[in-house]
């Protein structure tokens, strides 16, 4: 658990950070909260010559709650997501999910940007952001661009982000009044990835459904969402079971995971419906 040597960079603004990425290419990686990257470095499964720490960049911080849109800086921690009262009021789903990530010590350090940008299928925020139809703002040498969360994930640890880009901001449309939301997660213990997790929004004739850690990317299903919007819970579950592709691991075999995925999804839908206005 001793990492290999690296150069440490601590730029003060986004442009400088991108400059470092351009200069060192593959050799450089950005670090936010470090809760995915540092363990990988200690295991020597991730080795890089240059570590670019984003914590001194003020532009990456802060939560803005507007009437239609919530904006989260990439370096906002899970702890800040949990304790921000305006955010909890606007989109309670975010707080509910963040409380189910790891433990308080991890949440003090872990960031929303790191969670969504890393592309780890075990992370909770990517599925959540797909459910919420968030969009990710990326900044690179050629300027800024926006990618929908639902288009961002390509495979485990592979995303639409280019090597020299940094995810700087997340924009989330505020769901209308009357939309019920729920995040349901089954895990073996505190600190574990989900055996299965579901993010659900339903109400006002609309619905959105995404699931976590049941494929090599988060799974948002148009078909499942449409079925649920029409009140067809079993159709929604069936569509989602078609879309997921879990693999066996220490949490259990595929058959178990599919069964639990359906149970977790139904429970999330129940809770979301009970909260719909």
């Amino acid at each position, binding site marked *: 658990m001793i990492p290999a040597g690296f150069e440490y960079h601590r730029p003060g603004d986004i442009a400088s950070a991108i400059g470092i990425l351009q200069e060192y290419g593959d050799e450089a990686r950005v670090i936010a909260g470090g809760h995915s990257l540092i363990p990988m470095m200690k295991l020597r499964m991730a080795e890089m010559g240059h570590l670019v720490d984003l914590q001194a960049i003020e532009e990456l911080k802060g939560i803005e709650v507007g009437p239609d849109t919530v904006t989260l800086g990439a370096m906002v921690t899970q702890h800040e997501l949990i304790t921000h009262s305006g955010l909890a009021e606007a989109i309670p789903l975010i707080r509910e999910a963040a409380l189910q990530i790891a433990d308080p010590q991890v949440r003090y350090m872990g960031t929303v940007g790191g969670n969504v940008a890393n592309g780890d299928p075990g992370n909770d925020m990517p599925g959540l952001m797909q459910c919420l139809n968030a969009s990710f703002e990326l900044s690179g040498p050629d300027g800024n661009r926006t990618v929908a969360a639902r288009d961002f994930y390509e495979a485990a640890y592979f995303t639409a982000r280019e090597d020299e880009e940094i995810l700087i901001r997340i924009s989330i449309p505020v769901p209308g009044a009357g939309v019920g939301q729920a995040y349901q997660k089954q895990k073996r213990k505190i600190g574990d990835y989900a055996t299965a997790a579901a993010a659900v929004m339903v109400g006002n004739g609309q619905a959105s459904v995404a699931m976590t850690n049941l494929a090599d990317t988060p799974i948002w299903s148009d078909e499942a969402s449409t079925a649920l919007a029409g009140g067809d819970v079993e159709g929604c579950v069936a569509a989602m079971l078609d879309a997921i592709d879990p693999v066996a691991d220490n949490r*259990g075999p595929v058959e178990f995971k599919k069964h639990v995925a359906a149970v977790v999804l139904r429970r999330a839908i129940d809770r979301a419906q009970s909260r719909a206005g």
Partner: protein
Amino acid sequence: MTDQTLTPEERAANLKGMGCARKRVEDVRFTQGKGNYVDDIKLDGMLFGDFVRSPYAHARVVSVNKEAALALPGVIAVLTAEDLSPLGLHWMPTLAGDKQMVLADGKVLFQGQEVAYVVAEDRYVAADAVELVEVEYEELPVITDPFESLKSDVVLREDLEGQTEGAHGPRKHHNHIFTWEQGDKDATESVLAEADVVAEEMIYYHRTHPCPLETCGCVASMDKVTGKLTLYGTFQAPHAIRTVVSLISGLAEHNIRVISPDIGGGFGNKVGAYAGYVCSVVASIVTGKPVKWVEDRMENLMSTAFARDYWMQGKIAATKDGKITGLWCHTTADHGGFDACADPTKFPAGFMNICTGSYDIPTAYLAVDGVYTNKAPGGVAYRCSFRVTEAAYFIERMIEVLAIKLNMDAAELRRINFIRKDQFPYQSALGWEYDSGDYHTAWDKALKAVNYEGLRAEQAQRIADFKAGKTRKLLGIGLTHFTEIVGAGPVKNCDILGLGMFDSCEIRIHPTGSAIARLGTISQGQGHATTFAQIIASEIGLPADDITLEEGDTDTAPYGLGTYGSRSTPVAGAATAMAARKIRAKAQMIAAYLLEVHDNDVEWDVDRFAVKGAPERFKTMKEIAFAAYNQAIPGLEPGLEAVSYYDPPNMTYPFGAYICVMEIDVDTGEWEVRQFYALDDCGTRINPMIIEGQVHGGVTEALAIAMGQEIAYDDMGNVKTGTLMDFFLPTAWETPNYTTDHTVTPSPHHPIGAKGVGESPNVGGVPAFSNAVHDAFRHFGLVQSHMPHDHWRIWKIANGLGMHG
């Protein structure tokens, strides 16, 4: 208020002696980050060791190329078996009569095995150099299943080829280690043949790991000027380590000083000797500099001693009304690549022959076959006396299996088979003499405390509701009545590497009436400095707060066999009381001299000797202590100190009744412990608060083991659970509330009647949790399902019983 106006009860309370819930004196430093652990030790010029480990579970080591590693600046040496071989240190003896490679000698037998040892000036450089050592392997067929191993042509231990005799008798196969038999085989088989009812089941206790928060490590420091080696380490048995180091290194024992500083949990993991210790000592002797080695979490889980991995085939015979007539057990024990169990020499399967449990079973037979596989060595007593958790789990599952067969309530089945109070001392069919017990009283108290009948009624309603589709949750009631065997042990039959398993205490009273006591044991969190001072306080009438306790430095402490197997209180605690009594005997003579009466005319009164019939004429222990140093007393040497080496006449047999009430979600396999009641009888209770803490910790480890904690391997022998993501270590979140309770049945042969408690909660807790899971599904047809009961395995039970529609 002067001393004279205090009542005896008040004076006794001021001592904070036995029975007092005294706060742990250790916690002042632990809670302020002032503990001193091995990794806190920093010596001038200290070097760092790190291992190159095998990625394969079974492979030939074709070559090791050190060149690139040695070329890295800061690297001092890279040791391989070739380097250790001239010293005869490339192999080392195990505690079980086998030998074990220190560094891979031609082949590796488990994933994570030590192949080369890098020594560098800097911890980071050592890790970098490990990456640069090039090892060429040639993979060999891997065996992870002990039953396959006994059928396989693949020879795991080529060094033993042709040896048909092992340390514990004949070997039946090249992958077989020993057969150990106890009891009467023929008689048991005829009881089984003639019985009204026989229940048969395979009970598997999976492979897990003690996983102390602090991993294993050491700092070896050879002083070339004095010729003295100081070895700091996470040793549960520092004195035995000193002797072992002397025997295998050839250094004279007086030139070796072993120090166990603060230890962050042991649970059996820190009893044995590891390659890291040997390599660090060699590196320090060669370089003349201190060398530190501390393993990381993955290394700890993968390579240092595991626990359990017992396949226990059982048959239990009974009359049709439930009286047990016989017990038969054949165990296949997976020991991994080397037999490195930490058991007393004559007990290759530990005290597995306590497997008749709390029951009066007239006829029994036990056989254990030890087997080599391509897994890490070990088989230590993880928070239990040697193999006692295995034995308790076995009998407590077999009782449940028999209850199903008889269609009887499992609480009642236990009650009618308990050894009765009037049968103690009780001779068990497998050779033990149980010292004392009152099982019926404990059992009735436990059942009443949880309202057992009410729980069964609630469960019946729940089953009806489930069948009616009103709920998807089941209720399980897990029962356990366990009997432990701890306090190893009598020198006549208990030794480790030929060292008798006595223990020791030395007490020195200072002139002003305070004291220091040193023991041959070593606390790893048990609170010895708190509790042993309480024994002394009660025995010699000096306040516990005025008594310093010291352990773990072999230059100062008397020789002892260390702390594991709940042996500290039964053995060293007895030595402490006996040493204190020697002091009190001399104090009596001093008091009599000072009071100008005959020795027999004074009597002990809490903290003083008083003249018989004239209680106002007395000398307190403080006064006596001073007199011991400033008076010339005819016929007495000055000073006041004593040492006692205690060879226990018997083991002690703590027992308890545990009941777990668990809610189980059949659709997800999730569980919740709604209630856990733990009644412990550990004989005389020295510190109720420490006992309660021990029970909380032990039950939590039991929860972990029963509900998810395992060392799992894939078919290639890769460890699948090498991090705390997959290896279940409960946090406060997963830990339920416990209710503790007790009865007190003192040990008749122990000086203060104490039996030991640290391991009872693990021994009793595991079957309580497991039985709760089984009990929830009993009424739907489940008989046996192996631990750990994690979500998917519980789900699999429900699925197999057709509960998912």
